[in-house]
């Protein structure tokens, strides 16, 4: 460490007439600005460019949550919701989970990671990834989940969030209605 520092602060003698202490200060300030810049650009990139996600799939008019919840009293008790959110059925390890495990108590417009970090709904994949690590790894590589648009070049691309396909409260995939089968060779619609 000492050797590294010595290298870092090495200056040819007589280059600047300032004292050693002042030079160190200047170096520190420059370095801190540099690292701050790097930090800001990388964090901005991870948020918007690396995973260009569409808006999260909210029920219409439900967001921002704080428009109702800000004036409400916090009730941490696990209970059946009878007045609002009656359409939400928790079927996602429900015996050990409750709304406030993922939604933040104080800021309802945010989700809460295990380490206490608050994230927006557009970054919800980070929350899902805390338990489903292997799927998150594949999602980041573009294997689990769905990507549309351009895969190379500068064209627009979209990576769907976990919540676009899986209802976070009830993540099992629903059955869907298939498109009609192809016409058989003997089908009337296949004749002239």
């Amino acid at each position, binding site marked *: 460490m000492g050797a590294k520092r010595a290298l870092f602060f090495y200056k040819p003698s007589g280059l600047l007439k300032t004292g050693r202490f002042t030079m160190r200060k200047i170096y520190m300030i420059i370095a801190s600005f540099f690292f701050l810049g790097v930090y800001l650009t990388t964090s901005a990139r991870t948020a918007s460019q690396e995973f260009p996600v569409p808006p999260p799939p909210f029920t219409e008019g439900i967001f921002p949550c704080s428009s109702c919840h800000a004036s409400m009293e916090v009730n941490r008790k696990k209970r059946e919701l009878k007045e609002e959110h009656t359409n939400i059925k928790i079927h996602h390890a429900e015996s050990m989970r409750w709304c406030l495990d993922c939604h933040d108590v104080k800021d309802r417009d945010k989700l809460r990671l295990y380490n206490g970090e608050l994230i927006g709904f557009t970054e919800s994949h980070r929350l899902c990834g805390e338990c489903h690590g292997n799927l998150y790894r594949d999602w980041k590589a573009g*294997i689990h989940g769905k990507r549309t648009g*351009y895969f190379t*070049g500068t064209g627009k691309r979209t990576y769907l969030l976990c919540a676009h396909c899986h209802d976070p409260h009830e993540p099992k995939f629903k*059955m*869907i*209605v298939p498109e009609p089968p192809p016409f058989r060779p003997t089908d009337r619609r296949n004749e002239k």
Partner: protein
Amino acid sequence: MRNKNLTRREFIRNLSVTALAGASLPLLSSCSKEEAEDFLQKHFLEMTEDEKKRMIAKLEQRYLERYGKNFQISTQEAQPETLWGYGLELSRCVGCRRCVYACAQENNLSRYARQLHWIRVLRLKRGNLINLEDSEHYYAPETVPEKGFIYLPVQCQQCQDAPCVKVCPIHATWQEPDGIVVVDYNWCIGCRYCIAACPYKGRVFNWAEPNLPKDEVNPNVHYLGNRPRMKCAVEKCTFCIQRVRQGRYPACVEACPTGSRKFGNLLDPKSEIRYIIERKRVFRLREELNTESKFYYFFES
């Protein structure tokens, strides 16, 4: 003597010229100038840029008359350092056929009176993946996925050593440098050798003039890909050549509601398809035939 000899030579020359003119007379007389031009069109790979431009202008005019839309026919060539590969996750495919109809929409397929599809979704009994003969593609349940079945979508596998290319007697189908096997519909004579040779049933034939409703036409087309076809032309999946050469995902990839379909460049170590091949359990259909297909089916592992 010398004079007489010359006249005979002249006579023979005149005779042969007359014979040639007589032989080409039916060609020039029984069809219009345009048809004669079509007949004398060069092979696509031998055309100069100028000739291509003229042919494209002619085709665009013809499509405008037929479908009432301004077509953009691209002849974009393969990008360097690309070899396209496809991945399909069987553990997630639910057999909903969204891909089949998205493909028909994108690629201007005939909709009825010989409905054509480039993707065929096979339904197989779970645990019976080897017996493709027991498969069924007319299944019509109310909802999918059904219990006890798996779904195996099959389309052109873009073989690296393609049997269809080998059997074509006139080189109307060939492999592009980026690995896509294409058909020149103008050059195809409709002998259907390639359909017989394909072990995946990846090719379909226009037995009649295709029925493509005017309002459903997709005017962004590629000459070797999704431009409207004619009677007697063989056609097949081209990995959406008009999209992927611009760096865009194929239509079936974008249509899949479960995200089972993956696409990428096999030569790019960072691509999605390389990630799949390196980390997942991958297999190719009928690998024993040595077709070296570039369509990789995989499972969650």
